[in-house]
């Protein structure tokens, strides 16, 4: 029996179209737009102005607090302007426009491809490097990694979990990363263990990535404190709480952080970024993005500089298909649809999914037949049908009592509802309202 989390979960069609495509480096764009708020927390403060000359890897926006992250230039060239630009949300976001000239890297960065496995830094130095490099969770949540690695007082990390689950259908960037950069990842894991001061690390990989499991298992053979755990394919196993449950059997209490059970989870791409930042002095300014979709000519995995427009990515994958109906930033279960292809790739962009018209529209909504499937698939043990009704009737206190804030917005309920009810849409609204309610209570 393969390990997995216990309650709920669904298994959407995997559609990992680009799983066999090696990571390609995308050609440099002509201009980039780098937003200053690419992470959860306070946006960084721009420290460059129009006309400044930049090198690749140069700091252009400084972290403005503990829960914030530095932003580095992903290209060399001249700052065109510091102004608002487009965003998936449709609301303009502040950022830095740079005209690309050549490709001159900061001399500090080690550009060689050779593996640097020897570690000669202590915990504090590693943490400082991670913080300076502006590393955030690259799985999509974009939570600043250094914050995660510094447990609050009184808490201690016991185990490090590396999330190689990639449970979202279509996405393959982490899968390719494990296949192509396994050695670096192991070094990254060791760095994180050192930073956290834990002596155990586990890499969780879903069983649909046999080649990655084989590769990583081979690599960890020499390290007795790092292990690889194959997991049963089930969405949303990539959720922090679900992964911890699946791998360690520990259950993060409602409303608490994973650290409360001694676990820290980072994903594959983040671990690789940590390796690069610490061993190669390379700040986070590029990432791997899967561009995929059933009608896309060449579904691929691209290594992209942050700030490149999405339209360039789509062009590289064979252009926007004729019958494109929806473009999604991320995977089909939790990704965000957007209409403007001029938005930039940010640290949180794990994939660009293009859906044909006939799949883009939702089916007609029917009355709830109380089949209770939403309850049985909810990985948090909630009752989505009830939360939706409470939210619809604006009974926010009721929703709070029914633990609406525990919802991880995985979308399993809406995915499975035979009546096509917009369960998650209303639950999300409930979360927004209840969140405001809770905040308003605090003095």
């Amino acid at each position, binding site marked *: 029996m393969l390990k997995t989390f216990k309650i709920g979960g669904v298994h959407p069609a995997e559609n990992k179209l680009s799983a066999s495509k090696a990571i390609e480096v995308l050609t440099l764009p002509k201009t980039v737009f780098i937003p200053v708020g690419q992470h959860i927390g306070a946006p960084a403060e721009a420290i460059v102005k129009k006309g400044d000359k930049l090198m690749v890897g140069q700091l252009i926006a400084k972290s403005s607090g503990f829960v914030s992250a530095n932003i580095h230039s992903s290209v060399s060239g001249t700052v065109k302007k510091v102004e608002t630009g487009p965003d998936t949300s449709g609301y303009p976001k502040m950022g830095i426009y740079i005209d690309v000239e050549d490709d001159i890297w900061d001399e500090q960065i080690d550009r060689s491809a050779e593996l640097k496995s020897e570690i000669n830094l202590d915990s504090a130095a590693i943490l400082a490097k991670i913080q300076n490099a502006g590393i955030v969770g690259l799985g999509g949540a974009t939570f600043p990694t250094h914050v995660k690695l510094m447990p609050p007082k009184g808490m201690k990390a016991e185990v490090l979990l590396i999330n190689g689950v990639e449970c979202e259908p279509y996405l393959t960037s982490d899968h390719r990363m494990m296949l192509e950069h396994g050695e670096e990842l192991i070094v990254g894991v060791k760095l994180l263990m050192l930073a956290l001061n834990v002596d155990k690390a586990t890499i969780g990989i879903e069983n649909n990535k046999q080649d990655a499991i084989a590769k990583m298992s081979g690599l960890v053979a020499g390290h007795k404190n790092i292990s690889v755990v194959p997991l049963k394919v089930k969405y949303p196993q990539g959720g922090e709480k679900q992964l911890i449950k699946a791998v360690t059997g520990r259950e993060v209490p409602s409303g608490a952080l994973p650290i409360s059970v001694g676990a820290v989870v980072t994903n594959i791409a983040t671990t690789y970024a940590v390796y690069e930042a610490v061993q190669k002095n390379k700040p986070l300014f590029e990432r791997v993005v899967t561009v995929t979709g059933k009608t896309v000519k060449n579904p691929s995995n691209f290594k992209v500089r942050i700030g490149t427009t999405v339209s360039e990515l789509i062009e590289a994958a064979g252009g926007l298909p004729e019958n494109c109906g929806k473009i999604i930033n991320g995977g089909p279960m939790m990704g965000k649809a957007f209409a403007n292809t001029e938005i930039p790739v940010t640290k949180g962009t794990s994939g660009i999914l293009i859906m044909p018209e006939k799949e*883009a529209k939702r089916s007609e909504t029917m009355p709830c037949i109380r089949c*209770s499937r939403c309850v049985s698939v909810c990985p948090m043990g909630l009752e989505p049908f009830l939360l939706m009704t409470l939210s619809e009737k604006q009974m926010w206190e009721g929703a709070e009592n029914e633990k609406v804030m525990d919802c991880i917005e995985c979308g399993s309920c809406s995915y499975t509802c035979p009546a096509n009810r917009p369960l998650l849409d209303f639950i999300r609204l409930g979360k927004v309202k209840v969140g405001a309610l809770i905040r308003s209570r605090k003095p």
Partner: protein
Amino acid sequence: MSKLFTISPSPHVHSGDSVNKIMYGVLLALLPAFIWSVMMFGLDSVRVTLIAVAACVGFELLIQKFILKVKPQIADGSAALTGVLLAFNVPSSVPSWMLIVGALVAIGIAKMPFGGLGNNPFNPALVGRVFMLISFPVNMTSWPVAGSFGVDAVTAATPLALLKEGIKSGQPVVEILKGLPANMDLFLGNMGGSLGEISALALLLGGVFMLIRKIITWHIPVSVMVSAAIFSGIFWLIDPSKFADPIFHLVTGGLMLGAFFMATDMVTSPMNPKAQIIFGAGIGILTILIRFWGAYPEGVSFAILIMNALVPLLNRYVKPKRFGEVKIQSTNG
């Protein structure tokens, strides 16, 4: 921009399941029992089923079109399912007009006034059936002898009715059971009874089909049957001369039909596994209670309706196990 992209909240994919697929799946699962009933009762069972379905669908259409004035939704299959279940719960000899009255009660009283699909607190087919049973007791309790079609006016009581009669006249149960078909025959469906209830085997087949297709979960049918078996088993062990054995109770009186098709009706059953098990156990125990000490020889319909009434309460007070409802396990706490 010439073409507009669609924006919608996540998730952007769907399982492809639909209400219609569920309803037609249940109908398909009822097919074996229907075939068996045609073999046993002949064309009369076709007549009864067709009339019940046509009446239910017809009433729903009329109510939606002329009273509620909404877009008719009869294609969802729920009215047809109510019709089939109603037909399966009546003797094949029942006059057509009574069926139509039953269908009117099922759709016009038990379903549509509450808001139609998804909002009815009681199983419409059972409400229709119980209404018929109380209003037309004679027609509803004289069953044609199974396999004797073509011969007019041959009627017989169900095994449970015979048992009740026998106990009333003071015969020991063992003696009565000797006069009844063996449990194996009862399991296969060689007995008198309503259209769809007679063959436990055919119903079991349909039930397994629904379980495999994930239309239903095991919680309700299993808890109904286990609780009925245990509860009747206790009394049988205490005094076998007064009470029939649990197997007999399981294969007679529509318990299988109730457990797999009526109690599992999504709209009128609880919304989480824990509550479903309580619900099922309640049905099993109530059924046996009614059979032992009630006025009616069989009690599945009443038991389900009574438990239907408790569903809102169960939904409110029995909650699924929430993730993270645990004490902090690590030393960090």
